[in-house]
C-alpha cells in the first residue's frame, strides 16, 4: 500500500521547528505508544491531570491564539469558551468531536497526521475534552481512510490499557470515553452540524444555527467539533506554553501550519512550516516550482472552495488575514496549482460538478442552482456557450454565493473559485465563447509530467 505523502519533500531546514510532524520521518512509519512517549508524548496529559484545572487549560489555549485549521480559522479558545461549564451546564453528557472527514478537494494534511502519529491527535483530544468537561468523544473519520482508522483504533486500545482513557484517568477523577466513528461518505459531513446529524445516524443535512453546537449539539448536548490539525496542536501548547506557540508564527497568526501543493509543480507534497510563510516560498522552495514547460496561471490557496489568487499574490504570507485581505481564504492551507496548459474553465467546471453532486439537497439555491451553474459551464467548455452566459454566471455568483441565501456554506464556497475565475480569467471565458471550443483542448491522456 502506497501512502507516502512527503517523500518528495525538499531537504529539511533545521531552522524550522517541527511540531506536528516531529514524529513523522521520510519513511512515514507510524509512531506507536512507546515511540510517542519517548519523544515527550503524553507529558502534557500528565501535567494537566496532576494539577491543571479546565479553566487553566482554557486560558492557555485562549492566550495561544490558536485558530481552527479546518478552514474557517475561528479562534479555538473562544469556541471552547461558549460551552456551559460546571453548575451552569444541565446534567448529562458533553461531547468533543474530532472532524477527521477530510474531503475538501485538494486537501491532504489530516491523513498524514492520523496515519503517522495517531497518539498526537488522541492526546490533544483528551486535553480538549478535559477543558470543556466532556465525558464522551468521537473521531469522525471518512471511511476511505482505512489505514488511519486501523492505527487510531490501535492507539485508542493502547490508551485504555495505560489508563489515559476510561474511568479516573491517571487518578484525576476525570472520565472520558473515546470512539472512532467511520463515516459512510459525503462531503457535507465536514460541516459541523451536518457531521452531528451523521453521528446521530441521520442524513447529514446541516442544522440551522442558532442553537450553536457548543450549547446544543450531539443529542442536544453541548458539543465541540474541531479539525484534526487543530487538535494536534493542543498538547504542544499545554506542554510548552502560549508564548512559545505564538513565537512560531511569522506574522500575526500563531503556530505552524501544514501547507501543501498539488497540480503540475515539480515536487507536490505537504510540509509543516511556520504559519505566515510566503506563498512563493512554499511554491518555489518546497514544491520545487512549476513542472518543466508549465507556467503558473493561478492557485486556490486552501482547497476547492477558496477563491483563485494569481501571480501578483505570490509574496503574500500564507495566513488568515493576508489571504483574506487579498479576496480569498487560507482555508485548509493546501494549495491547488493551476498551470498555463490547464483550462481554468475546465477546472472550475470540475469543482462545480463536485459541489453540485455533494449538495445535500436541502435548500433550493444549492440543490437547483449548482446544477444550473454546472450546465452553463459545461456549455461554455464544450464550445456551445453564448456571450450572455457570462452574465448568467455573474448573477449565479451573486445570488447563490451570498451568505444567508443558503442554509449552509457549501454553495457560497462553491461560488468562490467561480467568481474569482470570472475576475482573473475573463479572457479565457470569452475565448471559449468566441472560438466555439476550448482553446486548451487536449487529447485524453495522462497529463502527469515525468518531473516527479
Amino acid at each position, binding site marked *: 500500500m502506497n501512502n507516502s505523502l512527503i517523500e518528495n519533500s525538499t531537504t529539511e531546514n533545521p531552522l524550522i521547528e517541527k511540531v506536528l510532524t516531529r514524529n513523522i520521518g521520510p519513511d512515514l512509519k507510524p509512531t506507536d505508544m512507546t515511540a510517542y512517549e519517548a519523544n515527550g508524548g503524553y507529558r502534557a496529559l500528565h501535567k494537566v491531570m496532576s494539577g491543571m484545572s479546565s479553566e487553566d487549560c482554557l486560558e492557555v489555549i485562549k492566550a495561544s491564539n490558536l485558530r481552527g485549521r479546518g478552514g474557517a480559522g475561528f479562534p479555538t479558545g473562544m469556541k471552547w469558551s461558549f460551552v456551559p461549564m460546571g453548575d451552569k451546564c444541565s446534567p448529562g453528557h458533553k461531547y468533543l468531536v474530532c472532524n477527521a472527514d477530510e474531503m475538501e478537494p485538494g486537501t491532504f494534511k489530516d491523513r498524514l497526521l492520523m496515519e503517522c502519529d495517531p497518539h498526537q491527535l488522541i492526546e490533544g483530544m483528551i486535553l480538549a475534552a478535559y477543558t470543556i468537561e466532556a465525558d464522551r468523544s468521537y473521531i469522525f473519520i471518512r471511511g476511505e481512510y482505512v489505514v488511519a482508522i486501523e492505527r487510531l483504533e490501535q492507539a485508542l486500545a493502547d490508551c485504555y490499557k495505560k489508563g489515559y482513557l476510561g474511568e479516573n484517568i491517571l487518578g484525576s477523577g476525570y472520565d472520558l470515553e473515546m470512539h472512532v466513528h467511520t463515516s459512510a461518505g459525503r462531503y457535507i459531513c465536514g460541516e459541523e452540524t451536518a457531521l452531528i446529524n451523521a453521528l446521530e445516524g441521520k442524513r447529514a443535512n446541516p442544522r440551522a444555527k442558532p442553537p450553536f453546537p457548543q450549547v446544543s449539539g450531539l443529542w442536544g448536548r453541548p458539543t465541540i467539533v474541531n479539525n484534526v490539525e487543530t487538535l494536534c496542536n493542543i498538547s504542544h501548547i499545554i506542554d510548552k506554553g502560549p508564548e512559545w506557540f505564538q513565537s512560531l508564527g511569522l506574522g500575526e497568526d500563531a503556530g505552524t501550519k501544514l501547507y501543501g501543493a498539488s497540480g503540475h509543480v515539480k515536487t507536490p507534497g505537504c510540509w509543516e512550516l511556520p504559519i505566515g510563510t510566503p506563498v512563493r516560498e512554499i511554491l518555489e522552495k518546497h514544491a520545487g516550482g512549476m513542472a518543466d514547460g508549465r507556467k503558473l496561471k493561478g492557485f*486556490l490557496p486552501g482547497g476547492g472552495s477558496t477563491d483563485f489568487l494569481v501571480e501578483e499574490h505570490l509574496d503574500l504570507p500564507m495566513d488568515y488575514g493576508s489571504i483574506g485581505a487579498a479576496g480569498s481564504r487560507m482555508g485548509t492551507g493546501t494549495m491547488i496549482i493551476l498551470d498555463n496548459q490547464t483550462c481554468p474553465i475546465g477546472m472550475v467546471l470540475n469543482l462545480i460538478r463536485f459541489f453540485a453532486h455533494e449538495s445535500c439537497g436541502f435548500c433550493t439555491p444549492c440543490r437547483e442552482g449548482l446544477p444550473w451553474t454546472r450546465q452553463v459551464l459545461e456549455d461554455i467548455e464544450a464550445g456551445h456557450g453564448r456571450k450572455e452566459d457570462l452574465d448568467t454566471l455573474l448573477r449565479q455568483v451573486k445570488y447563490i454565493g451570498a451568505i444567508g441565501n443558503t442554509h449552509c456554506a457549501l454553495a457560497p464556497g462553491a461560488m468562490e473559485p467561480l467568481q474569482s475565475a470570472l475576475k482573473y480569467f475573463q479572457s479565457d471565458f470569452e475565448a471559449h465563447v468566441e472560438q466555439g471550443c476550448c482553446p486548451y483542448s487536449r487529447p485524453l491522456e495522462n497529463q502527469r509530467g515525468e518531473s516527479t
Partner: protein
Amino acid sequence: MSEQQLIQSDIALSAEEIQQIDAELAHMPQKSGAAIDALKIVQRQRGWISDESLMAIARYLDMSPEALEGVATFYNLIYRQPVGNKVVLFCDSVSCWICGCDGVKQKISEKLGVDYGETTADNQYTLIPVPCLGACDKAPVMMVGDDLHTNLNNEKIDQIFSGQVSTTASTTESTAESTTTSEEEGS
C-alpha cells in the same frame, strides 16, 4: 414487492451482526443513532444492502424502513445495489483532474469494460467515482478495495488489473461467461 412480502423474505441479522450493532448501541442514547453503523456492519458481511437487509436492520433499530432508506441512499459508501468483490473508488476531484485522471478513467473503462456504476462481467470490480481521496500530491489516485493506488498512469492500470481478462464495451453474454470461468480457474 409489498411490505408483507419483504418481511417474509427478510433475511434475519446474524448473531455476529447483532453483536457488532449492539456494541454501537451501547454508547447511543437512542437506537436510530446506530443506523449508519448498522448499515456498514451488515454491508461488510453481505457486500451490499438489499431491501431484505434494510428491512431487517430497520426492525432491529425500531426505525421505519422509509427513514432508514433515506439514510442509506444519502451516503456514498452504502451500496443499495450489488457490487463486485472489490469496489474501485476512482478520484475525479480537482487535483486528480488537473493531473489527467480523465485519461486514466478511460483506460480503466477499456481495461475492465465498465463505466461508473457498473460491475465487471466476472463480478470482480465495481467502478464508482469518489470525492477527493486526500492524496493529492500523488494524483491521480484511486482505491481498489482497501488499497490506495497513487500516481496512476496507463501502465499502472495494466499492472493493478493484470489478472483481469480484457473485455470490450460490446461484451456479450457468452464472453462474459467465459471471463467468469477463466477468473475462477485462476483463483
